[in-house]
């Protein structure tokens, strides 16, 4: 069984009866290696479809947790259970509870490093005072508003209040937390949160693959929230200098916000500035200043000095890209594609209204980016298969669209692998309107193929 990874969180969903023999069959050595290779921020095993488990049944997963955490510093644990199952797990592993327990996936997401939604009002209670404090600190660090009930009575009283909280946390236990650098996306900027002492360990806890993916898909502004950093040593200094130099190729900017140099040598600041890093006192000084954002590249992500052009290697593989896209959309919508036109030029979108877009990058033996422009109707139809119902919720459509583009990326990877061309794919990026797509793509030259699915116009664009 493989974990399904979304937004940096991988979830296993075993079904039925979980004893020692079953869990060993569910989780092979290859599955564990594949999980490590996924490098997710959080790995969870959902128990929502498990009706029976014993200690042996959970052991295989606990061993996997240890391996994944030691390799990737990820948060690991079980989720989606009721109080009875929670108490059973606590009883089974009382002497060795190093993993976490989250009553639901929604609760787990609050503790994930790559969270998307902030400012949740969260009521929490745990009998253990140190657990209460640990949860509150983690939640606060992740941008939420924890409200701690000190007693069971207080908790019962507060949790009775309707709609007072976005989430209520019970039957949850924080084991060893991952030390990954928390990551979130705000508009076209990516914010990383770092804290306490920055040393050589930053090389392990910072997700460099995610950062490179973000550069590949067009992000240009990276902000390090350093309010809680106490000090930095020379290894961390070297790390950030190199990160900034590597980003210069993409015309990317790195900013430090709230960094205090009380316990860090002052000359470090000059070294960081020399490597191109900018310093700000307040986050709002950047995020609320539209002119500054534009200057820093967050609203014009295509501002790359050295534009990359299409080459023979990538154009030769064009049929594979088209096939992967067409086959995926046909599979998702049960409709037939008709190719209408193809040309090599800058992207040209006839109708900007009612369209949404998505892009996915690939790198390896060949590199480039596929951009797909969908009429909202095709996107909605394709999403119906994944979410099971028609929806007008743009955020949900965009989230599902990202999954669809992931499938296209996966198919491209397989088709190219058949020809011994090895590529990795980046995280997909979605655009709620054409204007935001054009910010990164309007000057790029590429191959544009206009397709039609049941008379709905669909645009495929392959570029570098």
């Amino acid at each position, binding site marked *: 069984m493989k974990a399904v990874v979304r937004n940096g969180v991988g979830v296993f969903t075993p079904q039925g009866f979980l004893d020692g023999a079953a869990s060993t069959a*569910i989780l092979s050595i290859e599955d564990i290696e594949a999980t490590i290779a996924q490098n997710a921020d959080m790995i969870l095993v959902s128990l929502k479809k498990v009706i029976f488990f014993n200690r042996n049944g959970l052991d295989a997963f606990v061993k996997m947790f240890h391996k994944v955490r030691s390799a990737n510093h990820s948060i690991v644990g079980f989720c989606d259970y009721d109080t009875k199952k929670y108490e059973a797990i606590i009883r089974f592993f009382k002497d060795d509870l190093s993993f976490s327990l989250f009553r639901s996936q929604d609760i787990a997401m609050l503790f994930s490093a790559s969270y998307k939604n902030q400012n949740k009002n969260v009521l929490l209670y745990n009998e253990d005072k140190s657990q209460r404090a640990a949860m509150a600190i983690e939640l606060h660090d992740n941008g939420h508003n924890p409200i701690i009930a000190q007693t069971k009575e207080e908790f019962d009283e507060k949790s009775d209040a309707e709609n007072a909280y976005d989430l209520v946390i019970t039957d949850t236990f924080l084991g060893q937390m991952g030390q990954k650098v928390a990551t979130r996306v705000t508009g076209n900027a990516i914010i990383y949160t770092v804290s306490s002492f920055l040393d050589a360990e930053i090389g392990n806890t910072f997700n460099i693959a995610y950062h490179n993916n973000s550069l590949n898909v067009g992000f240009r502004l990276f902000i390090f929230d350093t309010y809680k950093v106490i000090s930095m040593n020379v290894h961390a200094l070297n790390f950030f200098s190199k990160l900034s130099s590597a980003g210069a190729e993409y015309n990317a900017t790195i900013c430090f916000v709230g960094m205090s140099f009380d316990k860090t040598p002052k000359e470090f600041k000059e070294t960081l500035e020399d490597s191109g890093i900018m310093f700000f006192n307040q986050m709002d000084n950047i995020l609320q200043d539209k002119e500054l954002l534009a200057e820093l590249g967050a609203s014009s992500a295509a501002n790359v000095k050295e534009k990359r052009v299409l080459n023979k290697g990538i154009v030769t593989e064009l049929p594979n890209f088209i096939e992967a896209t067409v086959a*995926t959309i046909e599979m998702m919508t049960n409709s037939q594609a008709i190719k209408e036109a193809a040309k090599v030029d800058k992207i040209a979108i006839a109708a900007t209204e009612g369209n949404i877009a998505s892009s996915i990058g690939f790198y390896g033996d060949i590199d480039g980016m596929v951009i797909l422009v969908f009429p909202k109707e095709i996107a909605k139809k394709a999403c119906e*298969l994944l979410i099971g119902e028609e929806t007008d919720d743009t955020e949900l459509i965009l989230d599902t669209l990202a999954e669809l583009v992931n499938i296209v990326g996966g198919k491209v990877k397989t088709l190219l692998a058949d020809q011994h061309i090895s590529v990795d794919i980046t995280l997909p990026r979605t655009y709620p309107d054409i204007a935001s797509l054009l910010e990164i793509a309007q000057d790029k030259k590429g191959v544009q193929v206009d397709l039609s699915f049941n008379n709905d116009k669909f645009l495929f664009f392959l570029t570098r």
Partner: protein
Amino acid sequence: MITNEIIDSFIEKIPPAPKALKETLLFLNAGELVKASHVAKEDKALSTYLKVLVNKPIYGFRNEVSDVSQIFGILGVSKSQQAVYNYMMTLLSPSKWQLFKLNRVLFYNLQADLSMNWQKILTHLEIEDKDILSSISLLPASIIVSEALFCEKKKDVELLRSVNPIDLNTILKRLCNTDLFDICEQIATKWEMPADVSAIIQAASGVKPSEDERSNNLGKWMHLLLFYTLSQPKYIEAELNDFIDFQIEYVEDIYSDFSDLMEIS
């Protein structure tokens, strides 16, 4: 991916029940075991199947049983009917499995495991009805239908499920507005299986509770039995464990009873 035309074409290709089988079932229905065994003997494939099935360890016979009349005699009317329906189901199964890592022996084992435990459940529920005993034989049809419809789409299914943990039954329902168990019902109709069988199988999907209380209750037991069986390592390795979604809430009220009966601890 899968269209209604593909489903229609699959249903069209289902062969009618062979004459010898129909006659065997008619005699069994009338309680004529000897006449039934005489007709069954004429169908060599059926005789061989019955011999292989009843000599599986789960049937618990000490000595090998090889003669059809002996087999029918030992099994009695109800279990003989169930065994014949199990054989009919194998006529639909592919010679080579591609979507699932199954083979003929493992599929026969699955039929035997389900059949024996279903009988145990019916004894516990104090139900003596040969049609209900036979209903379990239709359950593996959902696996055969999945194999037939999705075997050429294995990579698409894998890609889809790598981003969304969606089961085959849901994919089919969302694409074609019909599901695996609707197709099972059509097989039952084509093979003139008793009406009770279809009602129980639909409820056993876990997503379509029956309005008839008895069928619904039996559907719960069958749904739970399916996942109890598919949690065995050999079926997990055959990738059968998650072809449909386990509806844990649906079976919650009978779980304690089930766990006592199966001695789960």
